[in-house]
């Protein structure tokens, strides 16, 4: 569905060159759901805007839905849907008017467009706001309106740039339900960007991690986490048992470091353990056998943030800015 080779975008602002996207190779098969994950300014939107023909690549090539983005941009546009990072509805328009016009732009007749608009308004819980002027919608309502606009013509390939930003948890869940249903019923291919780690983690099949305009990882969330992060294990033991446990954990931790803190006669060990959930029971048994039982145990599965941290040394969460 999508194939790019060395896709590059360099902006020139006042003679200064900004390398927003540095030669990325992306392949997306029909029906896949792929998430671009990366910090602000990583180049996610720029990549999407090249794939949707809104920006001309500086160099490299991209084929989208079987069509070259440079040779036949109009051909690409008629085969895709795009929900940009900004608000797509014109401020002074009524919700329903914009939706119907959008359908018309894609060649739907008014009756079909109206019917489709009503469906979408209902499922995105906007039906009461049908006649409202867009500027009078709340941020989250406006975002849902953007999604409705992008879905009007039921594209087979859909690009979404941070679709859920600004939505409350219930609406976010609702949006995802919608997206999943689209995939399920129509086999829609979906490429999206997100800042919500959980979203990339639980919803998409594949995560492409982008940083400084480059792809630094591309795999399923599960593989990325297993390969790059591992579970976080914390064990507390009595001071007397500490030397024994230190040896056992030291061996298990292999390459990683073993952290140690002490309080109230209790020693707390922390370590990152690839496949930790499977190894932990054995470890506990060994500790028991050695007469050094655990007092407390915590096991935290890795997040994509841990993956990003491992890859870049920076965190994607608050305070993790470059």
């Amino acid at each position: 569905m999508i194939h790019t080779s060395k896709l590059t975008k360099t902006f020139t602002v006042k003679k200064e060159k900004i390398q927003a996207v540095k030669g990325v190779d992306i392949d997306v098969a029909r029906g896949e759901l792929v998430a671009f994950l990366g910090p602000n300014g990583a180049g996610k939107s720029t990549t999407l805007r090249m794939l949707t023909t809104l920006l001309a690549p500086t160099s490299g090539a991209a084929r989208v839905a079987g069509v070259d983005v440079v040779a036949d941009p109009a051909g690409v546009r008629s085969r895709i849907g795009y929900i940009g990072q900004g608000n797509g509805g014109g401020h002074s328009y009524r919700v329903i008017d914009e939706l119907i016009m959008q359908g018309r732009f894609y060649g739907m007749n008014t009756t079909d467009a109206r019917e489709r608009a009503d469906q979408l308004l209902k499922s995105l819980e906007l039906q009461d706001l049908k006649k409202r002027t867009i500027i009078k919608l709340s941020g989250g309502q406006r975002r849902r309106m953007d999604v409705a606009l992008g879905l009007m013509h039921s594209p087979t390939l859909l690009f979404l740039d941070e679709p859920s930003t600004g939505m409350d948890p219930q609406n976010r869940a609702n949006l995802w339900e919608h997206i999943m249903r689209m995939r399920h019923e129509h086999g829609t291919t979906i490429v999206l960007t997100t800042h919500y780690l959980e979203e990339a983690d639980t919803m998409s099949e594949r995560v492409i991690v982008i940083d400084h305009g480059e792809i630094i990882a591309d795999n399923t969330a599960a593989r990325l986490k297993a390969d790059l992060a591992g579970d976080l294990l914390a064990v507390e033991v009595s001071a007397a048992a500490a030397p024994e446990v230190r040896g056992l954990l030291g061996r298990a931790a292999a390459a990683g470091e073993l952290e140690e803190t002490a309080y109230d006669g209790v020693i707390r060990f922390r370590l990152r353990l690839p496949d930790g959930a499977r190894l932990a029971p054995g470890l506990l048994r060994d500790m028991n056998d050695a007469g050094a039982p655990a007092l407390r145990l915590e096991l935290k599965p890795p997040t994509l943030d841990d993956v990003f941290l491992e890859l870049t040394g920076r965190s994607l969460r608050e305070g993790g800015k470059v």
Partner: protein
Amino acid sequence: MQLQQATAAGTAVRKPGIGRILQDTKYVFWREMLLVIRDPFSLIFSLVQPLVFLALFGPLLGAAVGVEAFGGESSLQWFLPGVVVMIALFGTSMTGSNLQYELMTGSYERILATPLSRSSLLIGRALKEWAPLVLQGLVIALASIPFGFVFYPLHVLFGLVVIGVFGIGLGALSYALALVTQGKEWVFWGVQQTLLFPLMILSGIMLPIEAGPRWMQVLSLFNPLTYMVNAERELFAGGLGWDTLWGVVAAVITAVVGLAVGVRVIKHSSL
């Protein structure tokens, strides 16, 4: 939450061509017109404005220049077509300003990502600025009849079409200007205003250019607006001759140049 399969039309790939451009233009035009339809108040204002202008300026003009300057006709017969051209000039040169709002939100980007043909974006928006003129022109003409204006409906109608073609060109240029000045809205206004007034004065809209010095007369020959004004004057007087023909030529050239520049700028600022 029920989501059904949408129409096949939604995913149909449409072939480019003239028919397609016309259809797309209709959609773009219609979307713009929705703003007027949903808020008809703006239309009422736009009807009152030229009437006020005409009522205040017309009598002064007749008194100041003298009836002889207009070949003995009512000064309105000479002045009114000028007002029509002026409204068209102000209206269509604003095409880009309405775009500026949409450039600031994601709304322009959303529309760019649809399969709409690029020239239809320009034509549709320019025509929206021209459309009220049809109504305005008729209202002004009718209102002027009691004051000695002779109304030739078919000629006037043709005159409005000619100015519409010119307006497409000017609107497209205004659109292009809005795109290249994106993020610096004041530059748009600076350029628009700076160009508008010399164009207007050098076309003889307000005062006959024949009364001016030689250099002004020469400059006016290079101003497409001059030919528009002359054509409209001939048409509004019930004539159909060389002035009209030159007006049509000037309008078509302006439209072709405007659209060529506009489409280029759209493709450059995006793809």
